[in-house]
């Protein structure tokens, strides 16, 4: 009973958070951000920790990665420069992917043979994206980030993933790369066999995904899943698992670039990583009592709001 009470309380906290960031109430926090340097040193790390804790819960309930929420919201509403937010955003996505990766790999919900060729392309391009992101003026990145976030919100609204796409015949590239396998679906007790098709267009799209992941520090689960599932024909569960694992490789390459350029400040990185990871654990536990669909729609609204804000910031409005 106590456990249920905690879960309901957490769900209410999530709704309170969503109301906060999408209402004028946030103006108070923003005003504090403006006078950020006058606050004691521990103020922003603590606010960031709790913010990321809630973000972690939300990310799980909405079925999105932490990075995609972290970068637009933290860059929009906290006093940190976008350079540091992107560097930390990659570390946040990376830590989440590294923590989830082993379980996914062991149960065949992520597959090395599917991930590796895709990861090679995405991680190489993420380096290019990170270098571009650090070379371009901040307002240009902010505008592009805003447009991308609005696009992601639209994608989350419109994209209808397929549980088990039909792949009649594997293509030559998929066959040569041995992109096939099987996993046990626990809900039905069925062994699901899978193979890929349209592998070449899929691999080409990972060029764009890699560049965007590196440039904006977003992680790229929002793009990985539709490409693996809808285009290449991997079952949804495998696509989600492999996508999460893929982030541990793609984000690593870009994270190194940001790290080497000085974009990681421990006082903001550590509370973000720990807060988001703890939030993800709680999120998984309350998934049973929450209504993820409703939360997913609210997250889409918050993302749209954050995207518009990033656009306006970039345009100097």
């Amino acid at each position, binding site marked *: 009973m106590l456990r249920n009470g905690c879960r309901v309380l957490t769900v209410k906290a999530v709704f309170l958070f969503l109301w906060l960031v999408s209402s004028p109430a946030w103006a108070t926090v923003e005003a504090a951000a403006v006078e*950020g*340097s006058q606050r004691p*040193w521990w103020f*922003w790390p603590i606010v960031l920790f709790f913010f990321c804790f809630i973000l972690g819960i939300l990310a799980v309930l909405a079925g999105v990665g932490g990075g995609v929420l972290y970068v637009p919201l933290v860059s929009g509403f906290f*006093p*940190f*420069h976008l*350079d*540091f937010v992107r560097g930390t955003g990659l*570390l946040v996505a990376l*830590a989440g992917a*590294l*923590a989830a*990766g*082993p*379980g996914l*790999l*062991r*149960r*065949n919900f992520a597959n*090395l043979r599917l991930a*590796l*060729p895709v*990861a*090679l392309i995405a*991680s*190489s391009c993420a*380096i290019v994206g990170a*270098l571009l992101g*650090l*070379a371009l003026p901040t307002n240009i990145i902010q505008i592009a980030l805003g447009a991308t976030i609005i696009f992601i919100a639209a994608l989350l609204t419109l994209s209808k993933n397929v549980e088990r796409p039909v792949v009649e015949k594997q293509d030559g590239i998929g066959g*040569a790369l*041995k992109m096939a*396998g*099987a*996993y*046990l679906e626990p809900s039905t*007790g069925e*062994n699901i066999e899978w193979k890929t098709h349209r592998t070449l267009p899929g691999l080409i799209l990972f060029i764009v995904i890699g560049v965007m992941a590196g440039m904006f520090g977003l992680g790229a689960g929002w793009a990985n899943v539709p490409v693996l599932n809808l285009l290449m024909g991997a079952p949804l569960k495998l696509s989600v698992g492999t996508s999460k694992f893929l982030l*541990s490789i793609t984000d*690593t*390459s*870009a*994270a*190194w*670039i940001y*790290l*080497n*350029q*000085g*974009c*990681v*400040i*421990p*006082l*903001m*990185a*550590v509370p973000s*990583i*720990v807060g988001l990871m703890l939030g993800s654990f709680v999120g998984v536990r309350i998934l049973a009592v929450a209504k993820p669909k409703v939360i997913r729609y609210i997250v889409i609204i918050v993302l749209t709001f954050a995207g518009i804000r990033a656009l306006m910031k970039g345009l100097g409005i």
Partner: protein
Amino acid sequence: MTPKAPPTPPEQITYANLLFYGSWGAIAILLITFGVYVSGILESYIPINEVSQYWSMPVSHYVHEAKIPIGWGWVTLLGNGDFLNFIGIVLLAGMTIVCFLVILPNYVKQKDIVFIVLVILEVLVLCLGASGLLGTGGH
């Protein structure tokens, strides 16, 4: 009766186990070093109450004004509480390279030329990113 789960390739299991211990080890180190940092046991390179003066500025200004070393220069500052945190962060970012190097012999044993090449290329790409050789000097 529930069918037996399809076997997971051994190299995938090795990768998963290594990733599990490496990542959680890195996060544990990160928590300890952060505790050392905020408790003030070790002196910080940038005094902790001055950090907020820097995080609103572009990274190029921060690096210049706070005299932050780029690339692997942070290694020389590991005696400071703030840079001590880089041990855990670098371990997190380096785990993938270690995992690929460890599973490479599996593909060699299987004589899987395609995956041998892919793993070697992936390690090279990640090492290039990690090397600190790539950089634009910021904007």
